[in-house]
């Protein structure tokens, strides 16, 4: 939940009074409950998300890991191709093309 705590602290800084901060906290809580894991393929273009789990074999997981896609990492969708084509994402400073099937096994949660 690294993403949540960070956006929370930003909220505190931005709020003028405590009430505002409380609102922000409540919103964050609701959001936190809403945050569900979706497939990477469901992301829209330019949307960022946090990697939660990677299903599938160890080999796939390790390969993704070495390309910078692992639990807790932020990735940004660049584009997806029609007809179950590959998705391209930005992980760190690297752009990566991932096959549709593999991308479906990557579960992410969107940070608002």
């Amino acid at each position, binding site marked *: 939940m690294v993403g949540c705590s960070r956006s929370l602290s930003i909220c505190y800084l931005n709020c003028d009074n405590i009430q505002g901060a409380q609102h922000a906290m409540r919103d964050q809580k609701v959001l936190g409950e809403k945050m569900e894991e979706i497939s990477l393929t469901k992301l829209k*273009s330019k949307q960022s998300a946090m990697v939660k789990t990677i299903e599938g074999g*160890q*080999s796939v997981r*390790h*390969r*993704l*890991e*070495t*390309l*910078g896609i*692992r639990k807790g990492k932020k990735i940004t969708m*660049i*584009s*997806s*191709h*029609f*007809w*179950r*084509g*590959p998705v*391209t994402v930005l992980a*760190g*400073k*690297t*752009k*990566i*093309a*991932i*096959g*549709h*099937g*593999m991308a479906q096994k990557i579960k992410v949660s969107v940070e608002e």
Partner: protein
Amino acid sequence: MSLKKDPKILLMGNPNVGKSAIFSRLTGAKVTVSNYPGTTVGFCQGYVTLEKNTYAVVIDVPGVYSLDPLTTTDEVAIKMREKGDMIINVVDATNLERNLFLSLELAEKNAPMIIALNMWDETKHKGIEIDVKALQKELGILVVPVCGLTGFGIKELVEKLKLVKKRTFKATTREEKWEKIGRVINLTQKLHHHHHTLLERFEDMSTRPATGIPIAMLVVYLSFKIIRGIAENLITYVFNPLFDKIWLPIMEKLSLFLGQKGVLHNVIIGKLVNGEIDYEKSFGLLTTGLFVPIAEVLPYILSFYLILGILEDLGYLPRLATQVDNLMHRLGLHGYAIVPMILGLGCNVPGAMAIRLLETRREKFIAGTLMAIAIPCMAQIAMILGLVGKRGGKYVALIFGILFLLLIVKGLIMNKVLKGKSPEVLWEIPPYRMPQPTAVVKKLWMRVFEFMRDAVPYVLLGVLIINVLSAIHVFDFLTGLFSPIIHNLWGLPDDTMPAMLMGFLRKDIAIGMLAPLELTTKQLVITCTVLAIYFPCMATFIVLLRELGWKDMLKSAFLMILTAIIVGTLMNIIL
């Protein structure tokens, strides 16, 4: 310098971090450097001078993301690591975090090691700030910032090689490594916001399918337009005048000296057509034998590799691969298989070598077979354009149209028939980099030199063989043997037989042999198509055999011949 005592230095790192660029800087050796993962298959070695009279062998190892055999398809790299005395770990400074995983793995093997922090110049405009001293301290490994493309830092790297000592690192798990990397990155790297450059904007456009697919079509179309434009201009203004104004008078004198006929004259100058030397029809070693590879094919090789080199160094190929991935999956391949196919358009030999990039045996088989059947090399394309082009552009289009159709149909069939399915794609899309003119020219020169070295002797040998065989009437016998196919099924005259035979050796000279035959347009189109399909040239066959193995190569060859017989027959009936 004794070969045994020289220490072995391995250049290791992730794919596309610029190992080959550093290799060629260190050793002065000529190797292919491109902007896409997997440029180096197999390995190259060269020498670096450490001090006066002290040398080390430097080996350019194919890129790997990890030493873990689970993740790595390239066992060569893992096996080679064990044989090195020292490792230069090439790290992409713009992707430090990800690259350090391999660095830690390598360090734990306890070989003396130094890190070359490559692409140092790019960190500045990418808003990346790395504290080299801190990084060195945290890792306990010497770190030298370098730039392989410009040569920055290479001298310092060589000097520091002497300081590298063996160190022992504690073995850690994957999780521990990532934790350590996280710590190191926090301490040593700062990211600043930076504005998108024009190239980066174009990067996004060529990645999204909505804009990327039209861009891909435009790039391919323009590339071929430019390739043809350059090549035709080279032929008209450079190579034809060279052969007509300078070489022809020499040949005419030689012809007179040799008495204008006789066996020796026919082998060296060829037969005179209406009392004159005809470069396309005479078929002598010094006339047609030189004219075909140099005046007809070389201009296309030059312009093709110029454009390919620019696209490669720009980093366009992985993007093209992403755009065509959908289509390629239907052919039983994945998008990256476009790379060997495009290389194959230049020459099938490097194309066949690049098949090694593909992971599964099934993919290799499909890619190899499709390439041999449907991807004509530039030598073949140039000859078809030259010979068939005279009969009209639509016939050229017909030949390439049929080959393209075959690519699709054969792919669809093989994908259906062969067990298994094409693996999922997972590859890195490198950032666009402005091609460096000197690098592009250097690569172009290397490839042209290779063509001249490999093609010219083969063509000359082919011309010689044909002359000898026709002098001793061997063709008459073979023609009788294959006449049922050539004559009855394909509707071709028996005198195309020598060309068909020559096609096993080289396609360009084989098509060149059709020039004097006075074939009808239909016959010419069928012969050119069949010549493209029925078998790869000798050099390609040898490489394919190595990549596919005997069993798959036999199956593949059977498919090629079968396809050629069917397609040739159908064309004979329909056209």
